Protein backbone atom coordinates (compact mmCIF):
# COMPACT_ATOMS: atom_id res chain seq x y z
CA UNK A 1 0.00 0.00 0.00
CA UNK A 2 1.15 3.48 -0.79
CA UNK A 3 0.05 6.95 0.26
CA UNK A 4 -0.13 9.23 -2.73
CA UNK A 5 -0.51 12.94 -1.94
CA UNK A 6 -3.74 14.27 -3.45
CA UNK A 7 -2.03 17.04 -5.43
CA UNK A 8 0.30 14.53 -7.09
CA UNK A 9 -2.22 11.96 -8.31
CA UNK A 10 -2.03 10.93 -11.96
CA UNK A 11 -5.03 9.67 -13.95
CA UNK A 12 -4.92 6.07 -15.23
CA UNK A 13 -2.42 5.82 -18.09
CA UNK A 14 -1.83 9.57 -17.74
CA UNK A 15 -4.89 10.09 -19.93
CA UNK A 16 -6.56 13.39 -19.06
CA UNK A 17 -9.85 14.87 -20.18
CA UNK A 18 -9.06 17.09 -23.15
CA UNK A 19 -8.81 20.66 -21.84
CA UNK A 20 -11.61 22.83 -23.22
CA UNK A 21 -9.77 26.06 -22.40
CA UNK A 22 -6.35 26.22 -20.77
CA UNK A 23 -4.56 23.27 -19.24
CA UNK A 24 -3.80 24.54 -15.74
CA UNK A 25 -1.43 21.68 -14.90
CA UNK A 26 1.56 22.57 -17.01
CA UNK A 27 2.71 26.16 -17.47
CA UNK A 28 5.42 26.20 -20.14
CA UNK A 29 5.83 29.94 -20.79
CA UNK A 30 8.97 30.09 -18.68
CA UNK A 31 10.86 27.74 -21.04
CA UNK A 32 11.06 30.61 -23.51
CA UNK A 33 14.25 32.30 -24.64
CA UNK A 34 12.68 34.53 -27.32
CA UNK A 35 9.12 35.84 -27.50
CA UNK A 36 7.19 36.84 -30.62
CA UNK A 37 6.22 40.51 -30.84
CA UNK A 38 3.35 41.63 -33.08
CA UNK A 39 2.98 44.87 -34.99
CA UNK A 40 -0.81 45.08 -35.26
CA UNK A 41 -0.55 47.70 -38.01
CA UNK A 42 1.03 45.14 -40.39
CA UNK A 43 -1.22 42.20 -39.43
CA UNK A 44 -3.87 41.26 -42.00
CA UNK A 45 -5.39 38.46 -39.88
CA UNK A 46 -4.21 35.72 -42.27
CA UNK A 47 -4.30 33.32 -39.26
CA UNK A 48 -1.02 31.58 -40.08
CA UNK A 49 0.17 32.09 -36.52
CA UNK A 50 -3.11 30.70 -35.16
CA UNK A 51 -2.84 27.65 -37.38
CA UNK A 52 0.85 26.91 -36.90
CA UNK A 53 1.31 27.48 -33.16
CA UNK A 54 1.79 24.01 -31.62
CA UNK A 55 0.51 25.26 -28.26
CA UNK A 56 -2.48 27.34 -29.42
CA UNK A 57 -0.89 30.50 -28.06
CA UNK A 58 -2.28 32.73 -30.79
CA UNK A 59 -6.02 33.28 -30.63
CA UNK A 60 -8.40 35.81 -32.18
CA UNK A 61 -9.74 38.24 -29.60
CA UNK A 62 -13.40 38.48 -28.64
CA UNK A 63 -14.12 41.32 -31.03
CA UNK A 64 -12.59 39.28 -33.87
CA UNK A 65 -10.31 42.18 -34.70
CA UNK A 66 -6.82 41.08 -33.75
CA UNK A 67 -4.74 38.05 -32.77
CA UNK A 68 -3.67 37.88 -29.13
CA UNK A 69 -0.60 36.13 -27.73
CA UNK A 70 -0.74 33.84 -24.66
CA UNK A 71 2.52 34.33 -22.75
CA UNK A 72 1.67 31.62 -20.22
CA UNK A 73 2.24 28.72 -22.62
CA UNK A 74 4.39 30.11 -25.47
CA UNK A 75 7.67 28.14 -25.43
CA UNK A 76 9.29 30.53 -27.89
CA UNK A 77 9.63 28.18 -30.85
CA UNK A 78 9.01 31.18 -33.17
CA UNK A 79 7.25 29.14 -35.85
CA UNK A 80 4.74 32.02 -35.90
CA UNK A 81 7.47 34.48 -36.84
CA UNK A 82 8.59 32.19 -39.67
CA UNK A 83 5.07 31.65 -40.98
CA UNK A 84 3.78 35.24 -40.67
CA UNK A 85 2.70 36.32 -44.17
CA UNK A 86 3.11 40.08 -43.66
CA UNK A 87 6.21 40.26 -41.43
CA UNK A 88 4.04 41.59 -38.64
CA UNK A 89 5.81 39.26 -36.20
CA UNK A 90 9.38 39.64 -34.99
CA UNK A 91 11.33 38.12 -32.11
CA UNK A 92 12.56 39.78 -28.93
CA UNK A 93 15.10 38.34 -26.51
CA UNK A 94 13.31 37.40 -23.29
CA UNK A 95 16.25 37.77 -20.94
CA UNK A 96 17.18 41.25 -22.14
CA UNK A 97 15.87 43.15 -19.14
CA UNK A 98 16.88 46.78 -18.68
CA UNK A 99 18.34 46.10 -15.25
CA UNK A 100 20.32 43.10 -16.51
CA UNK A 101 18.66 40.72 -14.05
CA UNK A 102 17.26 37.45 -15.37
CA UNK A 103 13.93 36.61 -13.79
CA UNK A 104 12.44 33.15 -13.88
CA UNK A 105 9.15 32.10 -12.46
CA UNK A 106 8.96 28.79 -10.60
CA UNK A 107 10.83 26.66 -13.11
CA UNK A 108 8.09 24.05 -13.45
Amino acid sequence: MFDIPKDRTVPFGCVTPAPLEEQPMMITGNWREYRPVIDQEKCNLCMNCVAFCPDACWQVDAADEEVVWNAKYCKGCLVCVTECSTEALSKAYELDFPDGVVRLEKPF
Partner: protein
Amino acid sequence: MAKELTLSGCAAAAQAVKMARVDVICSYPIRPYTAAMMELAKMVNEGELDAEFIHGEGEHAQLSVVYGASAAGARVFTGSAGVGVTYAFENYSPISGGRLPVQMMIADRALDPPGDFGSEHTDAMSARDQGWIMGWAETPQEAFDNHLINYRIGEDARVMLPQFVCQDGYFVSHIPGKVKIPDQAQVDEFLPPYRPGRHVLDPKQPCSHGPQIRPDQGAIMDLQRAQAFLDLPPVIEEVIDAYNRIMGRSYSPWLEEFMTDDAEIVFFLMGAHTATARHAVRHLRERGVKAGLVKLRFVRPWPSEQVARSLAKFKAVGVIETSTSYGGSMRGGNLLAEVRASIYDAPKRPLTTSFMAGLGGDVIPLQEFYWMAGKLLAAVKAGRVEKAVYWAGLEHEDAPAAGARSDGAPVAVAVH
Protein backbone atom coordinates in the same frame (compact mmCIF):
# COMPACT_ATOMS: atom_id res chain seq x y z
CA MET B 1 -12.35 -27.88 -36.88
CA ALA B 2 -9.26 -28.21 -34.76
CA LYS B 3 -6.37 -29.32 -36.92
CA GLU B 4 -2.65 -29.90 -36.86
CA LEU B 5 -0.45 -28.05 -39.33
CA THR B 6 3.28 -27.95 -39.92
CA LEU B 7 4.21 -24.30 -39.50
CA SER B 8 7.27 -22.15 -38.90
CA GLY B 9 7.23 -19.89 -35.86
CA CYS B 10 6.38 -16.90 -38.06
CA ALA B 11 3.47 -18.69 -39.75
CA ALA B 12 2.24 -19.95 -36.38
CA ALA B 13 2.30 -16.40 -35.00
CA ALA B 14 0.32 -15.17 -38.02
CA GLN B 15 -2.29 -17.91 -37.53
CA ALA B 16 -2.71 -16.90 -33.88
CA VAL B 17 -2.99 -13.22 -34.75
CA LYS B 18 -5.61 -14.00 -37.37
CA MET B 19 -7.61 -16.10 -34.92
CA ALA B 20 -7.36 -13.27 -32.37
CA ARG B 21 -9.31 -11.18 -34.89
CA VAL B 22 -6.98 -8.18 -34.72
CA ASP B 23 -8.22 -4.83 -36.01
CA VAL B 24 -5.00 -3.09 -37.03
CA ILE B 25 -1.64 -4.49 -38.16
CA CYS B 26 1.42 -2.38 -38.94
CA SER B 27 4.37 -3.93 -40.73
CA TYR B 28 7.89 -3.04 -41.79
CA PRO B 29 10.23 -5.67 -43.16
CA ILE B 30 13.26 -6.97 -41.31
CA ARG B 31 14.12 -10.59 -41.23
CA PRO B 32 13.53 -13.01 -39.65
CA TYR B 33 10.18 -11.77 -38.33
CA THR B 34 8.98 -10.51 -41.77
CA ALA B 35 7.51 -13.89 -42.71
CA ALA B 36 4.77 -13.34 -40.13
CA MET B 37 3.73 -10.11 -41.86
CA MET B 38 3.87 -11.78 -45.26
CA GLU B 39 1.40 -14.39 -44.03
CA LEU B 40 -0.88 -11.76 -42.52
CA ALA B 41 -0.77 -9.56 -45.63
CA LYS B 42 -1.83 -12.57 -47.66
CA MET B 43 -4.69 -13.33 -45.26
CA VAL B 44 -5.95 -9.75 -45.45
CA ASN B 45 -5.61 -9.71 -49.25
CA GLU B 46 -7.51 -12.97 -49.62
CA GLY B 47 -10.27 -11.81 -47.32
CA GLU B 48 -9.53 -14.35 -44.58
CA LEU B 49 -8.84 -11.58 -42.09
CA ASP B 50 -10.75 -8.33 -41.81
CA ALA B 51 -8.07 -5.96 -40.52
CA GLU B 52 -6.48 -2.66 -41.46
CA PHE B 53 -3.03 -3.56 -42.77
CA ILE B 54 -0.73 -0.54 -42.76
CA HIS B 55 2.82 -0.60 -44.03
CA GLY B 56 4.89 1.74 -41.86
CA GLU B 57 7.88 3.71 -43.13
CA GLY B 58 10.07 2.24 -40.42
CA GLU B 59 9.88 0.57 -37.03
CA HIS B 60 9.39 3.84 -35.15
CA ALA B 61 6.39 4.52 -37.40
CA GLN B 62 5.11 0.98 -36.88
CA LEU B 63 5.00 1.46 -33.14
CA SER B 64 3.50 4.94 -33.55
CA VAL B 65 0.71 3.56 -35.73
CA VAL B 66 -0.24 0.79 -33.32
CA TYR B 67 0.08 3.21 -30.38
CA GLY B 68 -2.53 5.44 -31.99
CA ALA B 69 -4.73 2.56 -33.08
CA SER B 70 -4.66 1.03 -29.61
CA ALA B 71 -5.48 4.44 -28.11
CA ALA B 72 -8.50 4.43 -30.42
CA GLY B 73 -9.63 1.11 -28.94
CA ALA B 74 -8.36 -1.35 -31.56
CA ARG B 75 -6.74 -4.74 -30.98
CA VAL B 76 -3.38 -4.30 -32.68
CA PHE B 77 -0.36 -6.29 -33.82
CA THR B 78 3.09 -5.31 -34.92
CA GLY B 79 6.51 -6.90 -34.88
CA SER B 80 10.19 -6.58 -35.57
CA ALA B 81 13.65 -8.06 -35.07
CA GLY B 82 17.17 -6.96 -34.20
CA VAL B 83 17.93 -3.32 -34.96
CA GLY B 84 14.26 -2.79 -35.86
CA VAL B 85 13.44 -3.44 -32.20
CA THR B 86 15.96 -0.84 -31.11
CA TYR B 87 14.92 1.73 -33.75
CA ALA B 88 11.39 1.76 -32.32
CA PHE B 89 12.64 2.13 -28.76
CA GLU B 90 11.24 5.61 -28.04
CA ASN B 91 7.66 4.36 -28.30
CA TYR B 92 7.87 1.49 -25.83
CA SER B 93 7.62 3.50 -22.62
CA PRO B 94 4.78 5.82 -23.77
CA ILE B 95 2.73 2.78 -24.79
CA SER B 96 3.11 1.05 -21.43
CA GLY B 97 2.72 4.39 -19.63
CA GLY B 98 -0.49 4.96 -21.56
CA ARG B 99 -1.59 1.48 -20.44
CA LEU B 100 -2.34 0.32 -23.97
CA PRO B 101 -2.27 -3.45 -24.64
CA VAL B 102 -0.29 -3.32 -27.88
CA GLN B 103 1.14 -6.68 -28.95
CA MET B 104 4.53 -6.86 -30.66
CA MET B 105 6.16 -10.01 -31.96
CA ILE B 106 9.94 -10.16 -31.76
CA ALA B 107 11.80 -12.86 -33.70
CA ASP B 108 15.26 -12.29 -32.29
CA ARG B 109 18.17 -11.23 -34.41
CA ALA B 110 21.63 -10.16 -33.28
CA LEU B 111 22.15 -6.40 -33.13
CA ASP B 112 24.59 -4.55 -35.38
CA PRO B 113 27.48 -3.94 -35.66
CA PRO B 114 28.48 -5.66 -37.69
CA GLY B 115 25.45 -7.22 -39.33
CA ASP B 116 24.82 -10.76 -38.17
CA PHE B 117 21.49 -12.26 -39.11
CA GLY B 118 21.63 -14.89 -36.39
CA SER B 119 19.39 -15.13 -33.37
CA GLU B 120 20.39 -13.63 -30.04
CA HIS B 121 18.08 -12.35 -27.28
CA THR B 122 19.88 -9.02 -26.79
CA ASP B 123 17.50 -7.08 -29.09
CA ALA B 124 14.41 -7.84 -27.02
CA MET B 125 16.23 -8.02 -23.69
CA SER B 126 17.42 -4.43 -24.17
CA ALA B 127 13.76 -3.40 -23.92
CA ARG B 128 12.91 -5.54 -20.89
CA ASP B 129 12.56 -2.58 -18.53
CA GLN B 130 10.09 -0.56 -20.63
CA GLY B 131 6.96 -1.78 -18.84
CA TRP B 132 6.02 -4.52 -21.31
CA ILE B 133 5.18 -8.12 -20.53
CA MET B 134 7.87 -10.33 -22.09
CA GLY B 135 8.46 -14.02 -22.64
CA TRP B 136 9.92 -16.57 -25.08
CA ALA B 137 8.60 -19.54 -27.01
CA GLU B 138 10.57 -22.75 -27.51
CA THR B 139 8.57 -24.06 -30.48
CA PRO B 140 6.13 -22.78 -33.14
CA GLN B 141 3.36 -24.35 -31.04
CA GLU B 142 4.35 -22.35 -27.99
CA ALA B 143 4.65 -19.22 -30.15
CA PHE B 144 1.09 -19.75 -31.41
CA ASP B 145 -0.21 -20.23 -27.88
CA ASN B 146 1.77 -17.32 -26.41
CA HIS B 147 0.28 -14.80 -28.84
CA LEU B 148 -3.26 -15.68 -27.77
CA ILE B 149 -2.35 -15.93 -24.09
CA ASN B 150 -0.65 -12.53 -24.16
CA TYR B 151 -3.59 -10.73 -25.76
CA ARG B 152 -5.86 -11.88 -22.97
CA ILE B 153 -3.36 -11.04 -20.22
CA GLY B 154 -2.54 -7.61 -21.63
CA GLU B 155 -6.18 -6.64 -22.27
CA ASP B 156 -7.40 -7.74 -18.83
CA ALA B 157 -8.93 -4.70 -17.12
CA ARG B 158 -6.70 -5.37 -14.09
CA VAL B 159 -3.58 -5.28 -16.29
CA MET B 160 -3.74 -3.10 -19.44
CA LEU B 161 -0.13 -3.56 -20.49
CA PRO B 162 1.63 -4.13 -23.83
CA GLN B 163 3.36 -7.43 -24.57
CA PHE B 164 6.53 -8.50 -26.34
CA VAL B 165 5.86 -12.02 -27.60
CA CYS B 166 9.31 -13.34 -28.43
CA GLN B 167 10.68 -16.30 -30.35
CA ASP B 168 14.23 -17.05 -31.44
CA GLY B 169 14.90 -15.98 -35.00
CA TYR B 170 15.46 -18.92 -37.41
CA PHE B 171 15.51 -21.64 -34.71
CA VAL B 172 11.82 -21.05 -34.07
CA SER B 173 10.78 -18.46 -36.66
CA HIS B 174 11.93 -20.49 -39.66
CA ILE B 175 12.04 -24.14 -38.60
CA PRO B 176 8.61 -25.69 -39.09
CA GLY B 177 7.08 -27.78 -36.35
CA LYS B 178 3.72 -29.38 -35.66
CA VAL B 179 1.19 -26.81 -34.46
CA LYS B 180 -2.20 -27.74 -33.09
CA ILE B 181 -4.66 -25.11 -34.29
CA PRO B 182 -7.84 -24.90 -32.22
CA ASP B 183 -11.29 -24.13 -33.58
CA GLN B 184 -12.13 -20.49 -34.04
CA ALA B 185 -14.94 -21.04 -31.53
CA GLN B 186 -12.40 -22.14 -28.88
CA VAL B 187 -10.30 -19.04 -29.54
CA ASP B 188 -13.39 -16.83 -29.34
CA GLU B 189 -14.33 -18.44 -26.05
CA PHE B 190 -10.85 -17.84 -24.65
CA LEU B 191 -10.33 -14.38 -26.13
CA PRO B 192 -13.48 -12.28 -26.29
CA PRO B 193 -13.42 -9.04 -28.29
CA TYR B 194 -11.28 -6.31 -26.76
CA ARG B 195 -13.35 -4.06 -24.51
CA PRO B 196 -11.15 -1.10 -23.73
CA GLY B 197 -11.68 0.95 -20.60
CA ARG B 198 -12.51 4.63 -20.51
CA HIS B 199 -9.00 5.78 -21.32
CA VAL B 200 -9.30 5.31 -25.09
CA LEU B 201 -10.75 7.51 -27.80
CA ASP B 202 -14.38 8.44 -27.27
CA PRO B 203 -15.75 11.46 -29.15
CA LYS B 204 -18.31 11.98 -26.39
CA GLN B 205 -15.55 12.28 -23.81
CA PRO B 206 -12.54 13.88 -25.50
CA CYS B 207 -9.24 13.00 -23.86
CA SER B 208 -5.54 13.73 -24.27
CA HIS B 209 -3.04 10.87 -24.58
CA GLY B 210 0.52 11.34 -23.46
CA PRO B 211 0.12 14.88 -22.13
CA GLN B 212 2.95 16.61 -20.31
CA ILE B 213 2.90 15.88 -16.59
CA ARG B 214 4.77 17.66 -13.84
CA PRO B 215 8.05 16.24 -12.53
CA ASP B 216 6.46 15.68 -9.13
CA GLN B 217 3.90 13.42 -10.82
CA GLY B 218 6.56 11.31 -12.53
CA ALA B 219 7.14 9.04 -9.56
CA ILE B 220 3.40 8.40 -9.23
CA MET B 221 3.25 7.48 -12.91
CA ASP B 222 6.15 5.03 -12.41
CA LEU B 223 4.44 3.62 -9.34
CA GLN B 224 1.29 2.93 -11.38
CA ARG B 225 3.25 0.75 -13.78
CA ALA B 226 5.22 -0.93 -10.98
CA GLN B 227 1.92 -1.72 -9.26
CA ALA B 228 0.51 -3.13 -12.49
CA PHE B 229 3.40 -5.61 -12.57
CA LEU B 230 2.86 -6.46 -8.89
CA ASP B 231 -0.77 -7.26 -9.68
CA LEU B 232 0.08 -9.28 -12.79
CA PRO B 233 1.08 -12.76 -11.51
CA PRO B 234 -2.37 -13.97 -10.40
CA VAL B 235 -3.88 -12.77 -13.71
CA ILE B 236 -1.23 -14.64 -15.70
CA GLU B 237 -1.89 -17.82 -13.70
CA GLU B 238 -5.64 -17.43 -14.21
CA VAL B 239 -5.32 -16.83 -17.97
CA ILE B 240 -2.98 -19.77 -18.53
CA ASP B 241 -5.33 -21.96 -16.52
CA ALA B 242 -8.19 -20.93 -18.78
CA TYR B 243 -6.06 -21.51 -21.87
CA ASN B 244 -5.07 -25.00 -20.75
CA ARG B 245 -8.70 -25.84 -20.01
CA ILE B 246 -10.15 -24.53 -23.27
CA MET B 247 -7.37 -25.71 -25.60
CA GLY B 248 -6.34 -28.86 -23.78
CA ARG B 249 -2.77 -27.78 -23.09
CA SER B 250 -0.67 -28.20 -19.95
CA TYR B 251 1.44 -25.05 -19.65
CA SER B 252 2.76 -24.08 -16.27
CA PRO B 253 2.72 -20.31 -16.13
CA TRP B 254 6.24 -19.54 -15.00
CA LEU B 255 8.73 -22.39 -15.18
CA GLU B 256 8.72 -25.70 -16.93
CA GLU B 257 10.87 -28.35 -15.33
CA PHE B 258 12.26 -31.31 -17.27
CA MET B 259 13.73 -34.39 -15.57
CA THR B 260 14.21 -32.48 -12.33
CA ASP B 261 12.79 -35.01 -9.84
CA ASP B 262 16.14 -36.14 -8.45
CA ALA B 263 18.32 -33.73 -10.42
CA GLU B 264 21.52 -32.38 -8.90
CA ILE B 265 22.56 -30.10 -11.76
CA VAL B 266 20.21 -28.19 -14.05
CA PHE B 267 20.39 -25.89 -17.02
CA PHE B 268 18.27 -22.75 -16.65
CA LEU B 269 17.29 -21.15 -19.95
CA MET B 270 14.54 -19.89 -22.20
CA GLY B 271 13.58 -20.12 -25.85
CA ALA B 272 14.73 -22.32 -28.69
CA HIS B 273 17.90 -23.79 -27.20
CA THR B 274 15.74 -25.54 -24.60
CA ALA B 275 14.97 -28.11 -27.30
CA THR B 276 18.64 -29.09 -27.62
CA ALA B 277 19.08 -28.92 -23.86
CA ARG B 278 16.34 -31.56 -23.45
CA HIS B 279 18.34 -33.96 -25.64
CA ALA B 280 21.52 -33.16 -23.72
CA VAL B 281 19.76 -33.86 -20.42
CA ARG B 282 18.45 -37.21 -21.70
CA HIS B 283 21.91 -38.22 -22.90
CA LEU B 284 23.50 -37.12 -19.64
CA ARG B 285 20.93 -39.21 -17.75
CA GLU B 286 21.87 -42.23 -19.87
CA ARG B 287 25.42 -41.71 -18.70
CA GLY B 288 24.37 -41.55 -15.06
CA VAL B 289 24.46 -37.82 -14.52
CA LYS B 290 21.52 -36.48 -12.52
CA ALA B 291 20.82 -33.61 -14.86
CA GLY B 292 17.65 -31.67 -15.58
CA LEU B 293 16.50 -28.36 -16.94
CA VAL B 294 14.30 -25.47 -15.95
CA LYS B 295 12.73 -23.41 -18.69
CA LEU B 296 11.68 -19.81 -18.08
CA ARG B 297 8.46 -18.68 -19.77
CA PHE B 298 8.24 -15.04 -18.68
CA VAL B 299 11.14 -12.62 -18.23
CA ARG B 300 8.74 -9.80 -17.33
CA PRO B 301 7.20 -10.18 -14.87
CA TRP B 302 10.21 -12.10 -13.52
CA PRO B 303 8.96 -14.97 -11.31
CA SER B 304 11.35 -14.45 -8.37
CA GLU B 305 9.57 -16.65 -5.84
CA GLN B 306 9.04 -19.51 -8.27
CA VAL B 307 12.70 -19.37 -9.34
CA ALA B 308 13.87 -19.45 -5.71
CA ARG B 309 11.56 -22.34 -4.85
CA SER B 310 12.42 -24.37 -7.93
CA LEU B 311 16.19 -23.90 -7.82
CA ALA B 312 16.43 -24.67 -4.09
CA LYS B 313 16.11 -28.36 -4.99
CA PHE B 314 19.37 -28.51 -6.93
CA LYS B 315 23.06 -28.48 -6.12
CA ALA B 316 24.24 -26.42 -9.08
CA VAL B 317 22.47 -24.35 -11.71
CA GLY B 318 23.99 -23.38 -15.05
CA VAL B 319 22.24 -20.33 -16.45
CA ILE B 320 22.48 -20.24 -20.22
CA GLU B 321 22.69 -16.65 -21.36
CA THR B 322 21.59 -15.88 -24.86
CA SER B 323 21.95 -12.14 -24.43
CA THR B 324 24.75 -9.81 -23.41
CA SER B 325 25.06 -7.24 -20.63
CA TYR B 326 28.45 -5.68 -21.20
CA GLY B 327 30.01 -4.54 -17.94
CA GLY B 328 26.99 -5.69 -15.93
CA SER B 329 27.24 -7.11 -12.42
CA MET B 330 27.74 -10.62 -13.80
CA ARG B 331 30.16 -9.49 -16.55
CA GLY B 332 28.25 -11.68 -18.97
CA GLY B 333 24.51 -11.81 -19.53
CA ASN B 334 21.32 -10.67 -17.83
CA LEU B 335 19.74 -13.87 -16.59
CA LEU B 336 22.32 -14.87 -13.97
CA ALA B 337 21.92 -11.47 -12.27
CA GLU B 338 18.15 -12.04 -12.10
CA VAL B 339 18.56 -15.63 -10.89
CA ARG B 340 21.06 -14.71 -8.18
CA ALA B 341 18.86 -11.80 -7.03
CA SER B 342 15.90 -14.19 -6.83
CA ILE B 343 17.65 -16.72 -4.62
CA TYR B 344 19.61 -14.26 -2.45
CA ASP B 345 17.07 -14.31 0.41
CA ALA B 346 16.19 -17.98 0.02
CA PRO B 347 17.03 -20.28 2.95
CA LYS B 348 18.55 -22.82 0.57
CA ARG B 349 20.57 -21.69 -2.41
CA PRO B 350 22.19 -23.73 -5.15
CA LEU B 351 25.56 -22.90 -6.65
CA THR B 352 25.03 -20.76 -9.73
CA THR B 353 27.12 -19.92 -12.73
CA SER B 354 26.41 -18.84 -16.29
CA PHE B 355 27.38 -19.82 -19.80
CA MET B 356 27.50 -17.35 -22.66
CA ALA B 357 26.23 -19.53 -25.47
CA GLY B 358 24.12 -19.33 -28.58
CA LEU B 359 25.20 -15.73 -29.25
CA GLY B 360 25.05 -14.22 -32.71
CA GLY B 361 22.93 -17.08 -33.95
CA ASP B 362 25.36 -19.82 -33.01
CA VAL B 363 23.85 -23.19 -32.32
CA ILE B 364 24.59 -24.69 -28.92
CA PRO B 365 25.69 -28.20 -29.85
CA LEU B 366 25.25 -31.16 -27.53
CA GLN B 367 28.98 -31.23 -26.88
CA GLU B 368 28.75 -27.74 -25.40
CA PHE B 369 25.95 -28.82 -23.06
CA TYR B 370 28.08 -31.78 -21.92
CA TRP B 371 30.98 -29.42 -21.31
CA MET B 372 28.71 -27.13 -19.28
CA ALA B 373 27.49 -30.13 -17.29
CA GLY B 374 31.13 -30.93 -16.56
CA LYS B 375 31.65 -27.45 -15.14
CA LEU B 376 28.54 -27.83 -12.97
CA LEU B 377 29.62 -31.25 -11.69
CA ALA B 378 33.06 -29.84 -10.87
CA ALA B 379 31.39 -27.01 -8.95
CA VAL B 380 29.31 -29.52 -6.96
CA LYS B 381 32.44 -31.54 -6.15
CA ALA B 382 34.41 -28.45 -5.10
CA GLY B 383 31.46 -26.94 -3.22
CA ARG B 384 31.88 -23.63 -5.02
CA VAL B 385 31.82 -22.21 -8.51
CA GLU B 386 35.08 -21.38 -10.17
CA LYS B 387 33.63 -18.22 -11.78
CA ALA B 388 30.34 -16.60 -12.73
CA VAL B 389 30.69 -16.55 -16.50
CA TYR B 390 32.02 -19.07 -19.00
CA TRP B 391 32.08 -18.38 -22.74
CA ALA B 392 31.08 -21.78 -24.06
CA GLY B 393 33.43 -23.12 -26.68
CA LEU B 394 35.86 -20.23 -26.22
CA GLU B 395 37.44 -20.92 -22.84
CA HIS B 396 41.11 -21.84 -22.73
CA GLU B 397 41.31 -25.42 -21.51
CA ASP B 398 44.27 -27.48 -20.44
CA ALA B 399 44.74 -30.79 -22.22
CA PRO B 400 41.74 -33.10 -21.63
CA ALA B 401 42.22 -35.30 -18.59
CA ALA B 402 42.59 -39.03 -19.06
CA GLY B 403 39.19 -40.62 -19.44
CA ALA B 404 37.66 -37.70 -21.31
CA ARG B 405 35.59 -38.85 -24.22
CA SER B 406 36.24 -37.69 -27.71
CA ASP B 407 32.67 -36.42 -28.11
CA GLY B 408 33.24 -33.88 -25.37
CA ALA B 409 31.21 -35.66 -22.69
CA PRO B 410 32.28 -34.36 -19.29
CA VAL B 411 35.24 -35.98 -17.59
CA ALA B 412 33.19 -36.45 -14.44
CA VAL B 413 30.83 -38.69 -16.35
CA ALA B 414 33.60 -41.07 -17.23
CA VAL B 415 34.58 -41.25 -13.56
CA HIS B 416 31.08 -42.41 -12.51
